[in-house]
């Protein structure tokens, strides 16, 4: 198991190197000059030349890449072109927020998907199954931005239960933090819940038709125990894979949700950085999320091992 883990981790290094080259090249392919965009209405030729020099954009691209890579080697992600703060401090400031949002929405997704998936798999084609399917399809097809604004109108504007936006750190005021994070987490979680429900339903249906389930039933094991102990455990393997993928997707989904609820997280920073062509910030963030997605898939691999011993020993 340890060797397996170590090997997977080492394999990440060349992958991340390729990612650095890709992200660097892609960011430079974006049309628009960061200096021009930053100066906006004030872009006189003299100001442009000066700002490009200050940003180091007047150096050859290869030199810029090598110098960035050199900085990366020293764990230095550079400084924001917008306000001169270090990229690492920006990421450190935003990532916990988005991480909390992703975890909360994942919790909501699992809390919704587990019972819904099981219930609809128990009587496929039944009224309950049809209702769950309808809700799940609605959940998948509802765009995040629409659901988010809908929730704001219902719960903040009409009912005035929850503030429409705002953010307080978890460590500063946990109660307020959870209250403020609820709507964004639900917005983000509903789509995942829908996908997970569908996966769990089909996976569970398949497992329930397997011989060993029939055997367990024939042996007189109680219905609930068959589902929870025999069927669910095996049905969860594909669901965990999807869950891992969803977590990566949640980071992406957070981009829209954070924008709607004004949550100052990773996604919002990234959107802002792209629109203002804050190259060091985009590069640092994409690299960080690549590393994170890798980490998640690594953890998913480890989770397989925990659920299915054949993976561990195979």
């Amino acid at each position: 198991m340890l060797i397996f883990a170590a090997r997977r981790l080492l394999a990440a290094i060349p992958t991340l190197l390729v990612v650095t080259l890709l992200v660097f090249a892609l960011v430079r392919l974006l049309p628009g000059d960061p200096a021009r965009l930053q100066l906006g209405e004030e872009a006189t030729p003299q100001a442009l030349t000066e700002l490009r020099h200050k940003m180091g954009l007047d150096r050859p691209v290869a030199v810029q890449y090598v110098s960035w890579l050199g900085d990366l080697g020293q764990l230095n992600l550079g400084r924001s072109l917008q306000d001169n703060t270090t990229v690492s401090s920006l990421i450190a400031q935003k990532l916990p927020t988005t991480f909390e949002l992703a975890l909360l929405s994942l919790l909501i997704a699992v809390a919704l998907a587990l019972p819904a998936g099981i219930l609809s798999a128990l009587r496929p084609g039944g009224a309950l199954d049809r209702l769950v399917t309808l809700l799940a399809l609605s959940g998948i097809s509802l765009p995040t931005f629409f659901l988010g604004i809908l929730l704001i109108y219902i719960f903040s504007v009409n009912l005035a239960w929850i503030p429409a936006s705002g953010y307080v750190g978890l460590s500063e005021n946990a109660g307020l933090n959870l209250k403020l994070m609820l709507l964004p987490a639900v917005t983000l979680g509903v789509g995942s819940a829908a996908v997970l429900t569908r996966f769990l339903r089909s996976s569970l249906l398949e497992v329930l038709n397997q011989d060993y389930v029939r055997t367990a039933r024939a042996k007189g094991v109680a219905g609930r125990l068959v589902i929870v102990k025999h069927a669910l455990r095996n049905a969860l393997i594909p669901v965990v894979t999807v869950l891992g993928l969803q977590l990566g997707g949640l980071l992406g989904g957070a981009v829209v949700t954070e924008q709607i609820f004004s949550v100052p997280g990773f996604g919002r920073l990234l959107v802002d950085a792209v629109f203002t062509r804050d190259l060091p910030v985009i590069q640092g963030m994409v690299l960080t999320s690549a590393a994170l997605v890798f980490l998640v898939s690594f953890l998913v691999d480890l989770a397989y091992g925990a659920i299915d011993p054949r993976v561990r020993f195979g």
Partner: protein
Amino acid sequence: MTRTKFAPPMILGLTLFLSTAAAETLIVGLDADPPRLDPALSTAFVDRQVMNQIFDKLVDVDEKLKVVPMVAKSWKVSNAGLTYTFKLNTGIKFADGTVLDAAAVKYSIERNLTLEGSARKGELASVKEVAAPDAATVVINLKVPYGPLLAVLSDRSGMIVSPTAAKKSGADFANEPVGSGPFSFVSRKRQDNITLKANAVYWRGKPKLDGLVYRPFPDGDVRVANLLSGAVQVITPVDPKDVATIQKNAKLDVTTFQGLGFQGVWMNIGKPPFNNKLVRQAFSASLDRDAINKVVFLGTVKPAAGPFPPGTPAYSAAIRVQAADLAGARKKLAQAGKPSIPFTLLTAPGAVNAQLAQLYQAMAAQVGFNVKIETVEFGALLDRADKRNYDAVMLGWSGRPDPDGNIYEFFHTGGSNNQAGYSVPGIDSLLEKARAQTAMSARVATYNVALGKIVDDSPYAFTYFTSNTVGNAKTVTGLRLVPDGILRFYTVDTK
């Protein structure tokens, strides 16, 4: 209201706005997160909303755009417009406790002129030297007479920074700005909030509010939802479609007032089809500017004839809004020998832009243009406009108090906002002449001559003048409506 002494300012702000009794701290929703709160480095309009509370300026403009005293209590222009002598108010202190005197004014203007990456160098290019003969006198000597100088000093170029703090913070001054304004900077969390507190020793008297929290909401729907839910008490701007929603709410007010900017369409005079003046005139004549105002803006803007909005010093009734003239437009296209002309209209994303583009498309189609709309992200749009890689592009201007700021860089050869590559020697000399004139009546006469030719040449189809819109809780009083669109919170109170 009781306060916890140890609460970080951000919690304080949020707790205040989450409780209904948030009387003394006002939460303001803006459409973007102000990127750089440094008068020299600032390039975004939204920066000015916050910096105007933190910094005092040498002079200010009032509701009629008249230049009025601020740090300078009086001034004198001499030496044929080459010397400006300012007498300063005394007893002004920066938030860090240091004194604002003539040396600090000299330092601030020189910082704007010399700091690497300063965006103020262009508008201060006429300045030869700044002198501080005594603690209460500042003398600015110019290389050439420059009429717009006072108006320029009523904006970022005239903001006085604390020299001590600026030297200490260096490149980080934008993240810890120190001025002498009615509010002082407490903290900022990027994309979340900027928190200011009242300057208790403000030289014009303590402001009525205890604090201000600015929060960015880029999406108009989200901005208005936050106002409706009471999470913020003031928002600016308000999308035209939301004006009626706010009006219907008994607890809220919405105000629309004349801005300084204009919007329209550049036509690329360097390549077909718009290298032909008749084709440009035909497109401009196909636009029904009243209909645009009614359909897209629900009557909240004014149709534009030129670059100077009504109510601003250089506005002249002699420059008339062009009425839609479909027959005339078709005739011009026939004269040009091109009864049907395809072209691509470049625009940036956004609901208003999309509506405008479709309206232009439909209007131009009536006279024989076949318009294809291409939507690209704003950075890409600027890039293509600068490289003149377009047929027609929708680009406007936020406006400046002095008319020079609304015309010179647009229609002067090589101007930084001259995206059409318009170059007419006669126009260049007229714009230079107006810049050197000090009497507004003389300048307006010069501008009118230039505008007659510019409108006839039609490198740019002016369509409408932008409005400022503010939505606020009715409990908020004392908001002054200055056409520059900047909300000055010094006089604001909550009931």
